[in-house]
């Protein structure tokens, strides 16, 4: 029965985030775990690093939570992004949205991660065998797919 919006270094506290989005009035809770994959466009990824413009990133995440409250009346939401080195397979972003009905919980969760990926100033760097790249800003100018 609360809102949690934060950027952390080190592992995300899922329990705390889930508890924020839980409430006896909520029949539905939708979550999303984004984790670092072991490959990207066919290349093996060895490690990942996230950087944030922290105060602006938190402000944009709060803005997303505000939009979610206005659009779907969903107030119980957690949005946590991890920065720094994130080992392969570990979770870099976690969203949880609780609502009396499931449709709103799903819509809120989906909107949160979609909008976060579009508007929140956080950047991911992938390290390969033969180099490294800031995702979305490649020499060819292409942007990342998801």
């Amino acid at each position: 029965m609360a809102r949690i919006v934060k950027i952390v270094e080190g592992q995300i506290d899922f329990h705390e985030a889930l508890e924020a989005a839980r409430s006896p009035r909520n029949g539905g809770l939708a979550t999303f775990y984004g984790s670092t994959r072991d490959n990207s466009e066919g290349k093996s990824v060895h490690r990942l690093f996230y950087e944030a413009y922290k105060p602006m990133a938190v402000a944009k995440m709060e803005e997303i939570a505000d939009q979610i409250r206005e659009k779907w009346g969903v107030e119980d939401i957690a949005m946590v992004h991890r920065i720094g080195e994130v080992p392969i397979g570990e979770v870099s972003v976690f969203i949880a949205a609780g609502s009396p009905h499931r449709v709103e919980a799903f819509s809120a969760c989906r909107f949160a991660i979609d909008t976060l990926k579009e508007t929140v100033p956080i950047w991911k760097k992938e390290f390969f065998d033969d180099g490294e790249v800031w995702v979305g800003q490649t020499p060819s100018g292409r942007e990342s797919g998801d």
Partner: protein
Amino acid sequence: MARVLADATVGTARAAAVVSVRLFAGAAEATGVRVHRMSIEDGATVDVAFDRMVEEFPALAALKSSLKFAVNQEFVEMDQRLSDGDEMAVIPPVSGG
């Protein structure tokens, strides 16, 4: 460069604005700079400020088309005017998640 400009500004009696410009990710790596304090005419646009940055850090030129800009942690257009004390940010394509 910024210093010369500031002196010129004073010389023509226009007010100077000190703006700190923050760079991230690929933009920070390309320039080797994360924060750059710049003196500019009060009311100059983001566009003008960025052009000054390019003069100082030519590696930014190649990135320009992919960049967005923020002032005081809000995304802005290139014609946004800057005031003394503003924090301007050079925002490469975001890739969080």
